């Protein structure tokens, strides 16, 4: 199996689906001729023509709005929002339209669209190039939200998202586009080729939406993470030396509650890690669900390690980013309580 970066895996997913299904089209700012500022659509316009892969005006609402119209027509649009931080102008089209079209028309119309967006920090992008807005999607009935942590899942999940009949928010942690990143920003960069999950089957395959994966079996504590944080958590566990069960959620809505409950029931302890702002972040929902379902198995409070309730700063980026060190300290405290 070839080793791909996240970018290559994402591109490959679109390539596979555009070849299989004429209805699949992709567009966004700088997506067509240039191939995207992160190069995720590089070559697709040349290969499939400018009616299937094209540049759009700088209008996120327009991008999602036309995608909804195309989806209703019968296409399978994959729209790129250049940074997740710029999805807000499209939020009305996502929440009021894409998410509710099937419901409000009792199935007459639907919006089988994928909205791809790079998210997360760690690239000195400051407040407008670092956000993780997943909780703003998970609160919205009718949207699905997925976020891969490696090339293998990225390709399989993106194919599944394109085939999915519902609107899927596809978040791409940009810090791991080119290599896995465990939060040790002062260490040399590791390329994906060194990571086994960069091995990506050729052609068509899916990773099902709604299924978490246990990245590491363990008995001391369950750790829930997704995206870049999966790697941070792995690094933290290694340095602290806890026998943690690490669950990569992959899909936030629908959520694989069974896998979570099974693990926490077993370990009795749970740590949740995400990069987004804490208050009303997705960690809150996870924590609430766990105490609702595993209350009598919990030996200590469920702990959240998250971004702070501030905008994402530029110079103090590494004080904002949930570091392996912060995760490690939380783990140690959690194991002691």
């Amino acid at each position: 199996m070839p080793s791909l970066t996240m970018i290559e895996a994402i591109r490959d997913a679109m390539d596979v689906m555009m070849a299989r299904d004429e209805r699949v089209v992709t567009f966004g700012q700088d997506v067509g001729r240039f191939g995207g500022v992160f190069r995720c659509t590089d070559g697709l316009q040349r290969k499939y023509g400018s009616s299937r892969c094209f540049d759009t005006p700088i209008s996120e609402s327009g991008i999602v709005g036309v995608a909804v119209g195309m989806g209703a027509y019968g296409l399978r649009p994959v729209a790129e929002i250049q940074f997740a931080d710029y999805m807000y102008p499209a939020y009305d089209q996502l929440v009021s339209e894409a998410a509710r079209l099937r419901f409000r028309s009792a199935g007459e119309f639907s919006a089988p669209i994928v909205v791809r967006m790079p998210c997360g920090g760690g690239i000195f992008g400051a407040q407008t190039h670092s956000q993780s807005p997943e909780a703003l999607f998970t609160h919205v009935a009718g949207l699905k939200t997925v976020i891969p942590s490696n090339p293998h899942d990225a390709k399989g999940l993106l194919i599944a998202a394109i085939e999915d009949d519902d609107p899927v928010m596809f978040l791409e942690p940009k810090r791991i586009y080119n290599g896995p990143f465990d939060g040790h920003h002062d260490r040399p960069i590791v390329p994906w080729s060194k990571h086994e999950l960069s091995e990506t089957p050729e052609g068509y395959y899916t990773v099902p939406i709604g299924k978490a994966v246990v990245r590491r079996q363990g008995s001391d504590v369950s750790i829930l993470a997704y995206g870049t944080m999966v790697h941070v958590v792995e690094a933290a566990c290694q340095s602290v030396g806890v026998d943690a069960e690490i669950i990569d959620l992959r899909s936030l809505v629908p959520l694989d509650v069974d896998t979570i409950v099974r693990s926490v029931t077993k370990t009795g302890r749970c740590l949740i890690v995400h990069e987004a702002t804490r208050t009303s972040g997705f960690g809150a929902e996870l924590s609430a669900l766990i105490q609702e379902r595993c209350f009598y198995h919990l030996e200590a409070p469920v702990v959240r390690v998250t971004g702070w309730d501030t905008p994402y700063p530029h110079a103090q980026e590494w004080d904002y980013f949930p570091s392996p060190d912060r995760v490690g300290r939380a783990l140690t405290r959690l194991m002691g309580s």
Partner: protein
Amino acid sequence: MSGGPLTLHVPEPQPCFGKAADSSRLHLSEAGQVRRPAVDVEAAEIRDLAYALIRVLDDGARAAGPWSGACTIEQLRAGLRAMLKTRAYDTRMTMLQRQRKTSFYMQCTGEEAISCGFQPALQSGDMNFPTYRQQGLLIAQDWPVIDMMCQVLSNEKDRMKGRQLPVFYSARGAGFFSISGNLATQYVQAVGWAMASAMRGERSVAAAWIGEGATAENDFHAALVFASVYRPPVVLNVVNNQWAISTAQSVAGGESATFAARAHGYGIPALRVDGNDYLAVHAAASWAVERARKNLGPTLIEWVTHRAAPHSTSDDPSKYRAPEDQTAWPLGDPVDRLKDHLIGLGGWSEARHVQLKAELDEEISVASKAAQGYGTLVEGSKCSPASMFDDVYKLMPPHLREQRQELGF
């Protein structure tokens, strides 16, 4: 630099209470005076049309000028019938709301010519993206009113399963996109739908609908930008009925320019049309749809009309609308004008008119009783609460199944 302090300009509605009406804001033209360009005209060549008003019927209800002559008498009679039926439907539904059989209703009184005259310009396979005031699009194609009534009543036959506010129809088979309560969102979706038709090399046309008030919404701009860039087969309709709830069109920008002129900044050809003139509506609609179908791109049309009724059953216009506004309205009533025109052509009579109205009232009344037989919002059966969990997603995910159980199903 000279001058006193700055001041904020806050538009006054026209006409004001107790003041004589000034209709300059309407940029009227004489019937028959505005030219009819070829459909492949460049936008730049017809900029003047955004400041004129295409009219076919003059004050004596005679047809004049290059936009006339597109309809047969049969077609005109069908148009009259559609408008009358729409009006009868509105009247009956408003009554049902007053009887508390549903929560809410919205009439299109005074604006019937626009949707009733537009629909015949479309073909099967085309798609309207309407607002809540285009029931005429359905009625003009003889969509069963009972189906619409069941939606208004949220009863067991409501195809929308009681989920939507009354009048938020959806009828894919009739080329009628699901109505959203959020203003303007559908405008850019229509452009996307038309883009899809072009991307697939097919031949369907989209029609986007918006009120003049809602053109202030951001998605109006998004729609025009995308239409300007990709030139898809879409007709961008702006229904200027002078009011947005209590707010006059001047607060949407209508004091400074026409809504048709909005298209100029995007290089989109624009027409401005007397929306109370069935013949003008049909002619302009056909022109724009032909352009779209011939791959000549989008057209924006401002339909100048007048909201003759309250905004909705929740509204009381006496608080904000001067009586002069109704009495001084210069473009008449679309039903009366078409009726007079047909009578003038010898194809209609007062007696037949009275008879048709009675027939339609009866038809609507029968349908209304039948619809109520399937229940109303407050009585009889409606869709099970369990169905609330359907269609949130294509397949119900586990958490919704659990919640449905929690509700007892």
